[in-house]
Protein backbone atom coordinates (compact mmCIF):
# COMPACT_ATOMS: atom_id res chain seq x y z
CA UNK A 1 0.00 0.00 0.00
CA UNK A 2 2.87 2.37 0.83
CA UNK A 3 4.27 1.48 -2.58
CA UNK A 4 1.04 2.50 -4.37
CA UNK A 5 1.02 5.90 -2.67
CA UNK A 6 4.71 6.52 -3.41
CA UNK A 7 4.28 5.46 -7.02
CA UNK A 8 1.25 7.68 -7.47
CA UNK A 9 2.86 10.73 -5.89
CA UNK A 10 6.02 10.32 -7.97
CA UNK A 11 3.86 10.02 -11.09
CA UNK A 12 2.02 13.20 -10.15
CA UNK A 13 5.32 14.97 -9.48
CA UNK A 14 6.58 13.86 -12.92
CA UNK A 15 3.47 15.30 -14.58
CA UNK A 16 3.85 18.54 -12.63
CA UNK A 17 7.54 19.13 -12.74
CA UNK A 18 7.20 22.85 -12.06
CA UNK A 19 6.24 22.18 -8.42
CA UNK A 20 9.40 20.17 -7.85
CA UNK A 21 11.63 22.59 -9.69
CA UNK A 22 10.38 25.69 -7.85
CA UNK A 23 11.42 24.14 -4.51
CA UNK A 24 14.84 23.21 -5.85
CA UNK A 25 15.42 26.61 -7.45
CA UNK A 26 14.35 28.33 -4.25
CA UNK A 27 17.03 26.36 -2.41
CA UNK A 28 19.69 27.11 -5.02
CA UNK A 29 18.91 30.82 -5.15
CA UNK A 30 18.76 31.34 -1.37
CA UNK A 31 22.08 29.54 -0.88
CA UNK A 32 23.69 31.47 -3.75
CA UNK A 33 22.52 34.89 -2.53
CA UNK A 34 24.65 34.80 0.63
CA UNK A 35 28.12 34.75 -1.03
CA UNK A 36 26.93 37.63 -3.24
CA UNK A 37 25.71 39.62 -0.25
CA UNK A 38 28.51 38.88 2.18
CA UNK A 39 31.34 39.26 -0.29
CA UNK A 40 34.22 37.00 -1.31
CA UNK A 41 35.89 36.50 2.07
CA UNK A 42 36.68 32.73 2.22
CA UNK A 43 36.98 32.50 6.01
CA UNK A 44 33.57 34.07 6.66
CA UNK A 45 31.97 32.00 3.91
CA UNK A 46 33.43 28.74 5.20
CA UNK A 47 32.20 29.55 8.71
CA UNK A 48 28.62 30.26 7.62
CA UNK A 49 28.28 27.62 4.89
CA UNK A 50 26.63 24.82 6.86
CA UNK A 51 24.19 27.18 8.58
CA UNK A 52 23.09 28.81 5.35
CA UNK A 53 22.66 25.52 3.48
CA UNK A 54 20.73 23.96 6.33
CA UNK A 55 18.41 26.95 6.89
CA UNK A 56 17.73 27.10 3.15
CA UNK A 57 16.95 23.37 3.21
CA UNK A 58 14.49 23.85 6.10
CA UNK A 59 12.73 26.68 4.28
CA UNK A 60 12.64 24.82 0.96
CA UNK A 61 11.24 21.71 2.61
CA UNK A 62 8.63 23.78 4.43
CA UNK A 63 7.65 25.62 1.27
CA UNK A 64 6.35 22.42 -0.25
CA UNK A 65 4.54 21.15 2.86
CA UNK A 66 1.33 22.93 1.95
CA UNK A 67 1.00 20.71 -1.12
CA UNK A 68 1.51 17.49 0.80
CA UNK A 69 -2.18 16.88 1.57
CA UNK A 70 -4.01 19.86 0.05
CA UNK A 71 -4.33 18.32 -3.43
CA UNK A 72 -5.75 15.09 -2.04
CA UNK A 73 -8.03 17.08 0.24
CA UNK A 74 -9.40 19.22 -2.57
CA UNK A 75 -10.25 16.36 -4.95
CA UNK A 76 -11.62 13.92 -2.37
CA UNK A 77 -8.77 11.40 -2.49
CA UNK A 78 -8.02 12.07 1.17
CA UNK A 79 -11.56 10.96 2.10
CA UNK A 80 -10.91 7.71 0.26
CA UNK A 81 -7.61 7.30 2.11
CA UNK A 82 -9.37 7.76 5.45
CA UNK A 83 -11.91 5.14 4.39
CA UNK A 84 -9.29 2.67 3.21
CA UNK A 85 -9.20 -0.60 5.15
CA UNK A 86 -5.40 -0.24 5.16
CA UNK A 87 -3.86 1.60 8.06
CA UNK A 88 -3.89 5.36 7.62
CA UNK A 89 -0.46 5.59 9.28
CA UNK A 90 0.98 3.44 6.49
CA UNK A 91 -0.58 5.68 3.83
CA UNK A 92 0.83 8.73 5.60
CA UNK A 93 4.25 7.09 5.66
CA UNK A 94 3.96 6.71 1.88
CA UNK A 95 3.10 10.41 1.55
CA UNK A 96 6.11 11.39 3.69
CA UNK A 97 8.45 9.12 1.71
CA UNK A 98 7.32 10.60 -1.58
CA UNK A 99 7.59 14.14 -0.19
CA UNK A 100 11.18 13.37 0.76
CA UNK A 101 11.98 11.79 -2.61
CA UNK A 102 10.54 14.77 -4.45
CA UNK A 103 11.86 17.64 -2.32
CA UNK A 104 14.54 16.23 0.02
CA UNK A 105 16.65 14.15 -2.33
CA UNK A 106 17.20 16.93 -4.93
CA UNK A 107 18.41 19.21 -2.10
CA UNK A 108 20.84 16.55 -0.88
CA UNK A 109 22.18 16.09 -4.40
CA UNK A 110 22.59 19.84 -4.98
CA UNK A 111 24.24 20.56 -1.61
CA UNK A 112 27.84 19.55 -2.53
CA UNK A 113 27.72 21.69 -5.66
CA UNK A 114 26.44 24.69 -3.71
CA UNK A 115 28.98 24.06 -0.95
CA UNK A 116 31.79 24.76 -3.43
CA UNK A 117 30.62 28.38 -3.58
CA UNK A 118 31.55 28.59 0.10
CA UNK A 119 35.02 27.15 -0.42
CA UNK A 120 34.23 24.15 1.82
CA UNK A 121 36.98 21.49 1.91
CA UNK A 122 36.17 18.04 0.54
CA UNK A 123 35.52 16.37 3.86
CA UNK A 124 33.18 19.13 5.03
CA UNK A 125 31.23 18.83 1.75
CA UNK A 126 30.82 15.13 2.35
CA UNK A 127 29.71 15.63 5.96
CA UNK A 128 27.26 18.36 4.89
CA UNK A 129 25.71 16.06 2.29
CA UNK A 130 25.47 13.13 4.68
CA UNK A 131 23.95 15.30 7.41
CA UNK A 132 21.30 16.47 4.93
CA UNK A 133 20.72 12.88 3.84
CA UNK A 134 19.92 11.92 7.44
CA UNK A 135 18.13 15.16 8.31
CA UNK A 136 15.83 15.86 5.36
CA UNK A 137 13.61 12.77 5.92
CA UNK A 138 13.04 14.03 9.47
CA UNK A 139 11.92 17.37 8.01
CA UNK A 140 9.37 15.60 5.77
CA UNK A 141 8.08 13.42 8.61
CA UNK A 142 7.71 16.27 11.13
CA UNK A 143 6.33 18.53 8.43
CA UNK A 144 3.60 15.97 7.67
CA UNK A 145 2.16 16.50 11.16
CA UNK A 146 2.00 20.26 10.64
CA UNK A 147 0.55 19.90 7.15
CA UNK A 148 -2.16 17.56 8.47
CA UNK A 149 -3.07 19.88 11.35
CA UNK A 150 -3.41 22.98 9.17
CA UNK A 151 -5.33 21.21 6.40
CA UNK A 152 -8.21 23.23 5.03
CA UNK A 153 -7.50 26.27 7.22
CA UNK A 154 -7.30 29.76 5.79
CA UNK A 155 -3.74 31.05 5.95
CA UNK A 156 -2.55 27.50 6.58
CA UNK A 157 0.75 28.22 4.84
CA UNK A 158 1.89 30.74 7.45
CA UNK A 159 0.50 28.69 10.30
CA UNK A 160 2.37 25.58 9.22
CA UNK A 161 5.68 27.47 9.34
CA UNK A 162 4.97 28.70 12.86
CA UNK A 163 4.06 25.18 13.94
CA UNK A 164 6.80 23.28 12.20
CA UNK A 165 9.90 25.52 12.19
CA UNK A 166 10.45 25.35 15.99
CA UNK A 167 10.34 21.55 15.73
CA UNK A 168 13.05 21.68 13.07
CA UNK A 169 15.50 23.41 15.45
CA UNK A 170 17.12 20.25 16.89
CA UNK A 171 17.72 18.88 13.41
CA UNK A 172 19.26 22.21 12.38
CA UNK A 173 21.55 22.31 15.43
CA UNK A 174 22.94 18.82 15.00
CA UNK A 175 23.06 19.00 11.20
CA UNK A 176 25.16 22.15 11.18
CA UNK A 177 27.06 20.94 14.26
CA UNK A 178 28.35 17.92 12.33
CA UNK A 179 29.79 20.11 9.58
CA UNK A 180 31.36 22.54 12.05
CA UNK A 181 32.91 19.69 14.04
CA UNK A 182 34.40 18.25 10.87
CA UNK A 183 35.79 21.66 9.80
CA UNK A 184 37.39 22.05 13.24
CA UNK A 185 38.98 18.62 12.86
CA UNK A 186 36.85 17.10 15.61
CA UNK A 187 34.85 13.89 15.81
CA UNK A 188 31.43 14.31 14.15
CA UNK A 189 30.07 10.77 14.60
CA UNK A 190 28.05 11.77 17.67
CA UNK A 191 26.12 14.37 15.67
CA UNK A 192 25.26 11.74 13.09
CA UNK A 193 24.12 9.33 15.81
CA UNK A 194 21.75 11.96 17.18
CA UNK A 195 20.43 12.81 13.69
CA UNK A 196 19.89 9.07 13.17
CA UNK A 197 18.03 8.89 16.46
CA UNK A 198 15.78 11.79 15.39
CA UNK A 199 15.07 9.93 12.17
CA UNK A 200 14.12 6.71 13.96
CA UNK A 201 11.90 8.50 16.47
CA UNK A 202 10.13 10.43 13.74
CA UNK A 203 9.62 7.26 11.65
CA UNK A 204 7.87 5.67 14.63
CA UNK A 205 5.79 8.58 15.88
CA UNK A 206 5.15 10.90 12.97
CA UNK A 207 2.87 8.64 10.83
CA UNK A 208 0.76 7.91 13.86
CA UNK A 209 0.52 11.58 14.90
CA UNK A 210 -0.17 12.65 11.30
CA UNK A 211 -2.93 10.05 10.92
CA UNK A 212 -4.56 11.30 14.15
CA UNK A 213 -4.27 14.93 12.94
CA UNK A 214 -5.85 14.05 9.60
CA UNK A 215 -8.82 12.42 11.33
CA UNK A 216 -9.28 15.58 13.40
CA UNK A 217 -8.98 17.89 10.38
CA UNK A 218 -11.44 15.82 8.31
CA UNK A 219 -13.91 15.03 11.15
Amino acid at each position, binding site marked *: *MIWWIVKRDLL*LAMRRRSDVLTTLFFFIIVVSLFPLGVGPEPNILRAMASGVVWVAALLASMLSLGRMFSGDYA*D*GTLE*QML*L*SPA*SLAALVMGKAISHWLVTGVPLVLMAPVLGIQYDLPGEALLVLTLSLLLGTPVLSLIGAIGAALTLGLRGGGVLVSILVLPLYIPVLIFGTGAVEASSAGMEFGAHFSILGAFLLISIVFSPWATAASLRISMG
Partner: protein
Amino acid sequence: MLTARNLECIRGEHSLFSDISFSVNSGELMFVGGANGSGKTSLLRLLCGLSSPDGGEILWDGMDIRELGGDYRGVLTYLGHLGGIKDDLTAIENLRISCALANCEIDEDQAADALGQIGLAGREMLPAKVLSQGQRRRVALARLLVVQTKLWILDEPLTALDIAAVGLIKEILEHNLSKGGMVIMTTHQEIVMTAAAVHHLTLS
Protein backbone atom coordinates in the same frame (compact mmCIF):
# COMPACT_ATOMS: atom_id res chain seq x y z
CA MET B 1 -27.10 -5.07 8.86
CA LEU B 2 -26.52 -1.37 9.35
CA THR B 3 -28.45 0.17 12.21
CA ALA B 4 -28.56 3.80 13.25
CA ARG B 5 -30.06 4.77 16.59
CA ASN B 6 -31.10 8.29 17.58
CA LEU B 7 -28.46 9.96 15.45
CA GLU B 8 -27.90 13.62 16.05
CA CYS B 9 -25.70 16.06 14.15
CA ILE B 10 -24.97 19.60 15.28
CA ARG B 11 -23.26 22.15 13.06
CA GLY B 12 -22.17 25.24 14.92
CA GLU B 13 -25.10 26.21 17.12
CA HIS B 14 -27.88 24.70 15.14
CA SER B 15 -28.99 21.12 15.03
CA LEU B 16 -29.02 19.68 11.51
CA PHE B 17 -31.01 16.64 12.50
CA SER B 18 -31.72 14.64 15.61
CA ASP B 19 -33.40 11.41 16.57
CA ILE B 20 -32.77 9.67 13.26
CA SER B 21 -33.16 5.89 13.52
CA PHE B 22 -33.27 3.28 10.78
CA SER B 23 -31.86 -0.05 9.82
CA VAL B 24 -30.89 -1.42 6.42
CA ASN B 25 -30.68 -5.17 5.83
CA SER B 26 -29.07 -7.27 3.12
CA GLY B 27 -30.53 -6.52 -0.30
CA GLU B 28 -32.20 -3.32 0.84
CA LEU B 29 -31.96 0.16 -0.57
CA MET B 30 -32.38 3.45 1.26
CA PHE B 31 -32.91 6.82 -0.38
CA VAL B 32 -31.97 9.81 1.73
CA GLY B 33 -33.92 12.84 0.65
CA GLY B 34 -34.40 16.41 1.79
CA ALA B 35 -33.83 19.97 0.71
CA ASN B 36 -30.38 21.44 0.09
CA GLY B 37 -28.62 21.93 3.39
CA SER B 38 -30.83 19.50 5.28
CA GLY B 39 -27.82 17.37 6.25
CA LYS B 40 -27.83 14.55 3.70
CA THR B 41 -24.09 14.63 3.12
CA SER B 42 -23.44 15.02 6.85
CA LEU B 43 -25.55 11.92 7.52
CA LEU B 44 -23.68 9.89 4.90
CA ARG B 45 -20.33 11.01 6.34
CA LEU B 46 -21.48 9.87 9.78
CA LEU B 47 -22.49 6.49 8.34
CA CYS B 48 -19.02 6.07 6.80
CA GLY B 49 -17.30 6.97 10.02
CA LEU B 50 -15.63 10.05 8.51
CA SER B 51 -17.10 12.12 11.35
CA SER B 52 -18.64 11.14 14.66
CA PRO B 53 -22.26 11.75 15.58
CA ASP B 54 -23.05 14.28 18.31
CA GLY B 55 -25.51 11.78 19.73
CA GLY B 56 -26.67 8.23 19.08
CA GLU B 57 -24.82 5.30 17.65
CA ILE B 58 -24.21 3.48 14.36
CA LEU B 59 -23.97 -0.31 14.45
CA TRP B 60 -22.79 -2.79 11.83
CA ASP B 61 -24.06 -6.28 12.67
CA GLY B 62 -24.55 -5.12 16.23
CA MET B 63 -21.06 -3.67 16.70
CA ASP B 64 -20.20 0.01 16.89
CA ILE B 65 -18.53 1.08 13.63
CA ARG B 66 -15.90 3.07 15.56
CA GLU B 67 -14.77 -0.11 17.30
CA LEU B 68 -14.78 -2.11 14.07
CA GLY B 69 -12.50 0.43 12.40
CA GLY B 70 -10.68 -1.19 9.48
CA ASP B 71 -13.05 -4.18 9.42
CA TYR B 72 -15.99 -1.85 8.76
CA ARG B 73 -14.08 0.18 6.19
CA GLY B 74 -13.35 -3.12 4.42
CA VAL B 75 -17.05 -3.77 3.68
CA LEU B 76 -17.80 -0.18 2.72
CA THR B 77 -17.53 1.82 -0.48
CA TYR B 78 -18.21 5.54 -0.28
CA LEU B 79 -18.51 7.88 -3.22
CA GLY B 80 -18.74 11.51 -2.21
CA HIS B 81 -19.40 14.74 -4.10
CA LEU B 82 -15.71 14.81 -4.86
CA GLY B 83 -14.87 11.73 -6.83
CA GLY B 84 -11.24 11.51 -5.75
CA ILE B 85 -10.18 11.89 -9.38
CA LYS B 86 -6.73 13.35 -10.03
CA ASP B 87 -6.58 15.73 -13.01
CA ASP B 88 -3.06 14.74 -13.98
CA LEU B 89 -3.64 10.99 -14.03
CA THR B 90 -5.32 9.03 -16.80
CA ALA B 91 -8.67 7.32 -16.29
CA ILE B 92 -6.96 3.93 -15.92
CA GLU B 93 -4.45 5.22 -13.38
CA ASN B 94 -7.21 6.91 -11.41
CA LEU B 95 -9.30 3.75 -11.30
CA ARG B 96 -6.39 1.47 -10.39
CA ILE B 97 -5.26 3.74 -7.58
CA SER B 98 -8.71 4.23 -6.10
CA CYS B 99 -9.18 0.44 -6.17
CA ALA B 100 -5.77 -0.12 -4.57
CA LEU B 101 -6.79 2.24 -1.77
CA ALA B 102 -9.89 0.11 -1.28
CA ASN B 103 -7.63 -2.96 -0.95
CA CYS B 104 -8.72 -4.45 -4.24
CA GLU B 105 -5.79 -4.29 -6.62
CA ILE B 106 -6.55 -4.66 -10.33
CA ASP B 107 -4.31 -4.78 -13.38
CA GLU B 108 -4.53 -2.55 -16.44
CA ASP B 109 -6.73 -4.95 -18.41
CA GLN B 110 -9.30 -5.22 -15.65
CA ALA B 111 -9.31 -1.43 -15.29
CA ALA B 112 -9.71 -0.94 -19.06
CA ASP B 113 -12.50 -3.50 -19.05
CA ALA B 114 -14.40 -1.74 -16.26
CA LEU B 115 -13.98 1.63 -17.96
CA GLY B 116 -15.25 0.10 -21.21
CA GLN B 117 -18.36 -1.21 -19.45
CA ILE B 118 -19.11 2.20 -18.00
CA GLY B 119 -18.92 3.80 -21.44
CA LEU B 120 -15.43 5.22 -21.50
CA ALA B 121 -13.94 2.88 -24.12
CA GLY B 122 -11.23 4.69 -26.07
CA ARG B 123 -10.77 7.32 -23.40
CA GLU B 124 -8.89 5.21 -20.88
CA MET B 125 -5.55 6.82 -21.57
CA LEU B 126 -6.72 10.44 -21.48
CA PRO B 127 -5.79 12.54 -18.46
CA ALA B 128 -8.84 13.23 -16.31
CA LYS B 129 -8.53 16.99 -16.82
CA VAL B 130 -9.67 16.72 -20.45
CA LEU B 131 -12.73 14.64 -19.54
CA SER B 132 -16.14 16.24 -19.11
CA GLN B 133 -17.88 16.41 -15.73
CA GLY B 134 -20.05 13.41 -16.58
CA GLN B 135 -17.10 11.37 -17.82
CA ARG B 136 -15.15 12.11 -14.63
CA ARG B 137 -18.18 10.95 -12.66
CA ARG B 138 -18.14 7.73 -14.69
CA VAL B 139 -14.47 7.16 -13.84
CA ALA B 140 -15.36 7.43 -10.15
CA LEU B 141 -18.37 5.15 -10.57
CA ALA B 142 -16.33 2.54 -12.46
CA ARG B 143 -14.95 1.53 -9.05
CA LEU B 144 -18.37 0.04 -8.23
CA LEU B 145 -17.86 -2.51 -11.02
CA VAL B 146 -14.65 -3.77 -9.47
CA VAL B 147 -15.00 -3.65 -5.69
CA GLN B 148 -16.43 -6.58 -3.77
CA THR B 149 -17.82 -4.57 -0.87
CA LYS B 150 -21.27 -5.06 0.56
CA LEU B 151 -22.35 -1.63 1.73
CA TRP B 152 -22.38 1.20 -0.79
CA ILE B 153 -22.90 4.74 0.43
CA LEU B 154 -23.31 7.07 -2.53
CA ASP B 155 -23.70 10.83 -2.35
CA GLU B 156 -25.51 12.12 -5.44
CA PRO B 157 -24.09 9.45 -7.74
CA LEU B 158 -26.31 10.52 -10.64
CA THR B 159 -25.36 14.18 -10.97
CA ALA B 160 -23.91 15.14 -14.35
CA LEU B 161 -24.77 11.75 -15.87
CA ASP B 162 -26.75 11.35 -19.09
CA ILE B 163 -29.84 9.13 -19.38
CA ALA B 164 -27.90 6.11 -20.68
CA ALA B 165 -25.43 6.34 -17.81
CA VAL B 166 -28.23 6.64 -15.25
CA GLY B 167 -29.68 3.41 -16.64
CA LEU B 168 -26.29 1.75 -16.39
CA ILE B 169 -25.76 2.84 -12.78
CA LYS B 170 -29.26 1.61 -11.94
CA GLU B 171 -28.31 -1.83 -13.31
CA ILE B 172 -25.05 -1.89 -11.34
CA LEU B 173 -26.84 -0.96 -8.11
CA GLU B 174 -29.59 -3.51 -8.70
CA HIS B 175 -26.97 -6.17 -9.34
CA ASN B 176 -25.30 -5.40 -6.01
CA LEU B 177 -28.67 -5.45 -4.24
CA SER B 178 -29.57 -8.80 -5.80
CA LYS B 179 -26.30 -10.25 -4.46
CA GLY B 180 -27.33 -9.22 -0.95
CA GLY B 181 -25.57 -5.86 -0.91
CA MET B 182 -26.93 -2.67 0.59
CA VAL B 183 -27.15 0.74 -0.97
CA ILE B 184 -27.69 4.05 0.79
CA MET B 185 -27.85 6.97 -1.58
CA THR B 186 -29.00 10.53 -1.99
CA THR B 187 -30.44 11.77 -5.24
CA HIS B 188 -32.66 14.54 -6.50
CA GLN B 189 -33.71 12.49 -9.51
CA GLU B 190 -36.71 10.20 -9.71
CA ILE B 191 -35.38 6.69 -10.11
CA VAL B 192 -37.22 3.42 -9.62
CA MET B 193 -35.20 0.42 -8.50
CA THR B 194 -36.09 -3.08 -7.51
CA ALA B 195 -34.77 -4.24 -4.16
CA ALA B 196 -35.84 -6.50 -1.30
CA ALA B 197 -37.09 -3.34 0.37
CA VAL B 198 -36.81 0.33 -0.48
CA HIS B 199 -36.69 2.77 2.42
CA HIS B 200 -37.11 6.50 2.14
CA LEU B 201 -35.60 8.74 4.76
CA THR B 202 -36.47 12.41 4.44
CA LEU B 203 -34.51 14.96 6.41
CA SER B 204 -36.16 18.26 7.17
